[in-house]
């Protein structure tokens, strides 16, 4: 009996408790699965493929190479277009160039407007390097560069999407500016079938520490890619060409920021003829990235490429037609006078940037570059040098005029003759005039490269050098226009 009463009491106690519990609670929470969090300790910063081989490659790139013994080639770097880089950033490239015997010259904004300017310097440069320009090239500059490339010079244009006008100001604001580097570069590259996109390449799946650092393993067939397996670029613009060669290409996961699409995108391309190279990244040349993957090898190859061109120097490159030390030879009837020495001194100074010096040997050397000074007079010593030009000197002509195969018969007064001959890798430049005053004037004209008053054929030119009979006189020169002539403006 008591037991029943206890059970009843317990039931009465439990009833409201159970009722309320069931009113609110319908079960027990069980985590659906073990609560997992990232294994943070396993995520370490990715390290670059900086191997011993990479260092060896970098050192190899800086090693002097005897194979390039010969006249020093000059690589001209542009810094006259508000370029967003400093030469110190290109140390790995300039070191590789110097190791291969090259000279480096920088065209800054002041030198761009001196007597030589860009056009004058391209006369003696082997290659021209433009990095991250932010100011467009003038029409005349573009023409000069096109002429330069057309005559064997090599052009390297490097952009970098991190070198634009955009950035972050002191207050931390992002400020956005047009990517003027792309328009400046594309204007220069227009005639070379190369163009940059206003983008950057990225790869979210396979990269070098960051999505914008792309690893490129697709290589075009060219010595520039010799020995390369992987090149790491650190934010690179994509490059397009129709008929040229894509040099460094990414895989299908390498995408363009412009389209978020990929497949065959390239960060470097060669123009048809391989005289012009467009490269979408600068950072890979800067330490420590120059030692990542095969970057050092690529920089080495770049240096070889820049020095591998063969400039075809012609009279329009005056006075920079020499490739080594020059011996000055004069005819017997020509004696050095003060004015001549001054003109030669000026010529020597003018040739300085090209690394060419003048010497005055007693006898004409059998080899080496020559500067021959003479008058329109028969001279047995110079006969062999002048012979190839088939000149008819006034003394040998019935009408007393100067006969030239290219220009016909001309009145020699106030006229200077310029002849350029090449044999066995040596250059001979011949300057002739009717008298010493005219020769000095011609020397000055050639030395200063002031060739606007000259008519050119491929290897000869006639220049007005005085106030006498000449281009400016009313007396006809008697040119035979049966040749292809070029006015140099």
């Amino acid at each position, binding site marked *: 009996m008591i037991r029943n*009463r206890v059970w*009843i*009491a*317990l*039931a*009465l*106690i*439990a*009833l*409201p*408790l159970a*009722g*309320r*519990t069931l*009113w*609110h*609670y*319908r*079960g*027990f*929470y069980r*985590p*659906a699965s073990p*609560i*997992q*969090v*990232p*294994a*943070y300790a396993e*995520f*370490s*910063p*990715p*390290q670059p493929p900086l191997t011993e081989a990479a260092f060896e490659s970098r050192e190899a790139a800086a090693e002097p190479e005897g194979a390039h013994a010969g006249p020093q080639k000059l690589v001209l770097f542009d810094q006259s277009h508000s370029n967003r880089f400093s030469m110190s950033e290109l140390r790995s490239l300039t070191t590789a160039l110097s190791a291969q015997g090259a000279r480096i010259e920088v065209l800054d904004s002041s030198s761009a407007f001196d007597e030589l300017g860009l056009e004058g310097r391209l006369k003696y440069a082997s290659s021209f390097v433009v990095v991250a320009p932010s100011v467009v090239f003038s029409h005349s500059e573009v023409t000069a560069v096109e002429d330069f490339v057309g005559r064997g010079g090599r052009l390297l244009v490097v952009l970098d999407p991190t070198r634009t*006008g955009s950035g*972050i100001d002191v*207050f*931390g*604001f*992002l*400020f*956005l*500016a047009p990517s003027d580097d792309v328009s400046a570069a594309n204007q220069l590259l227009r005639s070379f079938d190369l163009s940059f996109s206003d983008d950057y390449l990225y790869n*979210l*799946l396979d990269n070098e*520490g*960051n*999505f914008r650092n792309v690893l490129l393993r697709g290589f075009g067939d060219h010595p520039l890619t010799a020995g390369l397996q992987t090149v790491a670029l650190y934010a690179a613009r994509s490059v397009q060409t129709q008929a040229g060669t894509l040099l460094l290409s990414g895989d299908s*996961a390498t995408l363009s920021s412009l389209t*978020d699409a990929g497949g065959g995108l390239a960060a470097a391309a060669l123009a048809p003829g391989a005289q012009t190279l467009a490269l979408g990244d600068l950072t890979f040349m800067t330490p*420590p990235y120059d030692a990542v993957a095969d970057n050092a090898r690529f920089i080495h190859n770049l240096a070889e490429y820049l020095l591998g061109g063969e400039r075809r120097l012609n009279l329009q490159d005056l006075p920079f037609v020499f490739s080594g030390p020059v011996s000055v030879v004069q005819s017997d009837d020509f004696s050095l006078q003060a004015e001549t020495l001054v003109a030669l001194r000026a010529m020597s100074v003018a040739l300085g940037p090209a690394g060419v010096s003048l010497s005055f040997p007693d006898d004409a050397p059998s080899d080496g570059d020559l500067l021959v000074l003479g008058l329109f007079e028969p001279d047995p010593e110079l006969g062999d040098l002048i012979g190839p030009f088939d000149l008819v000197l006034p003394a040998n002509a019935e009408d007393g005029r100067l006969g030239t195969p290219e220009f016909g018969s001309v009145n020699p007064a106030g006229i200077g003759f310029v002849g350029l001959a090449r044999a066995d890798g040596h250059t001979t430049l011949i300057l002739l005039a009717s008298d010493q005053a005219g020769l000095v004037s011609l020397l000055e004209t050639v030395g200063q490269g002031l060739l606007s008053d000259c008519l050119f054929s491929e290897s000869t030119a006639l220049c007005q050098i005085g106030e006498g009979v000449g281009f400016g006189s009313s007396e006809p020169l008697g040119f035979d226009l049966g040749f292809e002539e070029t006015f140099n403006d």
Partner: protein
Amino acid sequence: MTLPETDHPQAGPRFWTAWVLVPLLVGLGLAALVPRPIVGLIYLQDAIYGFTAREMIAQINYARDHSEVRAVVLVLDSPGGTVVDTEAVYLEVAQLRERKPVVTMAQGVAASGAYYLSVGTDYIFAGPSSLVGNVGVISQLPIAPMVFEDLASTGPYKLFGSARDTRLREMEAIKQAFYSAVQLGRGDALAIGPERVLRGEIWLGSEAVRLGLVDELGSISASIEKAAELGHIANYRVADLRELAGLPAGFSVPFFFQTPEGVLTPYPNAPGFYLLYVPPGERSLP
């Protein structure tokens, strides 16, 4: 229940009092001790940084330590914040989930660090036009090390923390952890791979559902109901955990940079690693 009165002549008032009324009152009394379950709300309507993270963690701890809080809803409207504070809150949420379900309501913006928090919960709701995603890390790289005449230090990075390249690579490690959290949290529901997730895009809620970044479009009410369902509770009450935890309201410290002109920018005050969505187009040069 009927009591056999005829068999129990002694069933008088004493009997009823002793064996019925008292037990019933005891039962009612004990039942009153059974707490009404609570779905706790934790609001984040600011960036995630030291102050807001401390407040969130205090509320999480309250929920964990109080049995009547049977489920929690994170109501997020945040562009994210610092890495360390986001990770701290994320790990606290993970601990809370060992005991109680946590549901996210992505209201407004649940970007970057805020989305990081949401993938650590059991279920994610978003508004149709909420902004969700922006998976990734941002940081301003330190300047290149240099020395100063009047400011001495004992190591090349003492003043700068790390090399620029190191900072960049550390960002990558943080990003990998973030993506791992997304993978673990979303599991098979995630319909896109790393090549899409890691682009750092921010999506509308409606698109985020299709991509598997969130579970369902809904409202705060729906998220509360879902939390209650996961917590197996009914007839619950909803409470703001800030109030329950006794946190002072309306106090915060500046996280975003304010210009001298008083303009509040979307950029943080101090350099560092951030899981933060910075709306673009704040200023452009003419």
